[in-house]
């Protein structure tokens, strides 16, 4: 199994009382203090660099806009900073939100630059961006999926076809696609697709032309299992066998000396994560057209119904959205779940909400020193073969 340390870089210094049912789009930036931001950016980059030193296989950043939830509207800047401070770890951007940009070639360029600087250590994540970001960026949610696919095709062509060539899409049109620099890795950096489990994404990512790593994020364990199993089944339907390399799971995770201590230390911070940083009204999350009408109705009737409720520490540990405990508890649970789901990539988010630096670092060290060694041999032959 491989381990990718994921950071959201929340604005942890936020006045929690000011987040009254919404931390997105219109949550005023008067609640952001650049002096605190300066400290946090540097602390969080230290944590990412520490992860690389501790032997994580990769360090991960991602993109969110106009929110206290994450301070990385332009994640490639952080990836660039990490590129020169790490030597072996993969640099994973999970991911850039393709439909939000008017020129996807800028993403192809950023990614190619990081791949060149690091000599091929980039993992390129592609996402659609969440509903809130369609309000923030005024991008029409009704074309989100079309733009995602078209931007993806353009980036792959830009990376793999000799330029200059024209690109004639519906949303993106270019006379001269001619990318300088070309990516370092051949034919292009590995591509990961973070998802919350839409059927369309699953079928698209697992297609034999792509075989992208499918990363289920922040979901109850029952839904993670269902989606990863469905992905593997879809590979089989396409006529090939899914590898552990193709499956990933991203979740907040905390380790301390004992189960009791872990619960006590993590509880307030994980509750802040789910009930403060993540919250926004449903109209922000699901602008009309962002999903198909059928999945809109489904999500409204299921997931978002529950999102309105307070998510307690007990609730999120019981449903497996959060994994927390002593090193042996966490290792055993992950081993058990890996045997059910077959994932080869684990993407723990080890700082969440307001979790302070000392606790983050302790949890990282315990995980790297006492959990990773136990799990690393799992599926290692297949993972090595995929290199």
């Amino acid at each position, binding site marked *: 199994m491989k381990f990718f340390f994921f950071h959201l870089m929340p604005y942890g210094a936020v006045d929690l009382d000011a987040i009254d049912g919404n931390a997105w789009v219109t949550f005023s930036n008067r609640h952001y203090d650049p002096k605190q931001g300066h400290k946090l950016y540097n602390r969080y980059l230290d944590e990412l660099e520490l992860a690389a030193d501790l032997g994580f296989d990769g360090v991960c950043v991602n993109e969110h806009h106009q929110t206290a939830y994450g301070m990385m509207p332009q994640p490639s800047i952080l990836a660039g900073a990490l590129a020169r401070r790490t030597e072996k770890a993969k640099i994973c951007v999970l991911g850039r939100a393709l439909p939000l940009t008017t020129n996807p070639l800028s993403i192809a360029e950023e990614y190619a630059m990081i791949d060149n600087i690091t000599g091929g250590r980039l993992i390129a994540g592609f996402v659609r961006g969440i509903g809130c970001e369609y309000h923030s960026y005024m*991008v*029409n949610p*009704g074309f989100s999926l079309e733009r995602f696919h078209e931007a993806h095709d353009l980036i792959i062509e830009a990376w793999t076809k000799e330029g200059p060539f024209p690109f004639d899409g519906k949303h993106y049109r270019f006379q001269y696609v001619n990318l300088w620099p070309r990516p370092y890795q051949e034919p292009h950096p590995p591509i990961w697709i973070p998802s919350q489990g839409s059927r369309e994404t699953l079928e698209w990512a697992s297609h034999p032309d792509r075989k992208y790593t499918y990363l289920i994020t922040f979901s109850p364990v029952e839904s993670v299992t269902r989606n990863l199993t469905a992905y593997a089944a879809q590979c089989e339907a396409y006529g090939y066998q899914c590898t552990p390399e193709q499956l990933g799971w991203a979740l907040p995770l905390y380790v301390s000396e004992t189960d009791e201590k872990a619960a006590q230390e993590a509880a307030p911070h994980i509750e802040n994560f789910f009930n403060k940083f993540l919250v926004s*009204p449903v109209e922000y999350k699901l602008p*009309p057209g962002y999903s198909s009408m059928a999945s809109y109705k489904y999500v409204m009737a299921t997931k978002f119904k529950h999102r309105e409720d307070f998510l307690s520490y007990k609730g999120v540990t019981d449903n497996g959205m959060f994994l927390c405990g002593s090193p042996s508890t966490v290792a055993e649970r992950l081993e058990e779940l890996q045997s059910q789901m077959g994932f080869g990539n684990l993407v723990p988010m080890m700082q969440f909400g307001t979790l302070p630096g000392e606790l983050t670092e302790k949890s990282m060290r315990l995980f790297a020193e006492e959990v990773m060694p136990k799990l690393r041999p799992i599926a290692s032959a297949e993972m090595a073969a995929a290199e």
Partner: protein
Amino acid sequence: MAEGASERISINGCSINLAKGGSGPTMLYLHGAGGSKGWMPFMDQLSDRFTVLAPDHPGFGLSDTPEWLDNMNDLIFFYLDLLEQLDIRDAHLVGHSMGGWLAAELAVRGTGRFRTLTLISAAGNRVKGVPMGDIFMWSNEEKARMVYDPAAQQERLNAELSEEEADIALKNAFTSSKLCWSPRFHNPDLEKWLHRVKIPTMIMWGENDPVFPPPYAHAYRKLIASSELRIFPECGHSPQQEKLDEFMAGIDAITSRN
């Protein structure tokens, strides 16, 4: 007063629902982003004097959602086709909100088929420095405030939609978002061409419209020289429902003269 009858018509392969009622000169009524709400009391009144044609736009209500419908231009050209196919002449063109925008766009492309234009709380322009309301972000409580009267707001909040009605509301929201998300409910170029509208035009607006505040009404008044503006106090986004008598007086004023 006959309830409007519905029929299906097909324009270039796109099948739409057309509500029709009354007799007299033709009046084409173009609904807003919320879709048509059936044969409304104001339509009943209008049908005393006019042959009212109230289509569901493509992508709205009971009409088809065609693959080609990507933006307002597509909707405008669809209606240019419809005007030709139904051979609509000497008609009174009325549009509410997004439908008002649509009516203004049709009018700048040629007013030969129309005797008058009536714009009710019309989208289409952007008044710099005066934010529009954001119906895509508003909660149900906020949306209810599009009506001025608190009792009517409550009624709207308490209304229980059947599954079919809820599906249509969702369909309307999906299409209006696709057509109007950005630029938000306007065409930045429209103001350059509204001078082409030279037929008598009535602009009716609620003084308390939270979607397009009154400066949006004055903008239309200024851009269309042949227009008259009536602003109704204690009225929200839908004067044709909230101020029925005043609305009918406005219609009478513009149509009886022309």
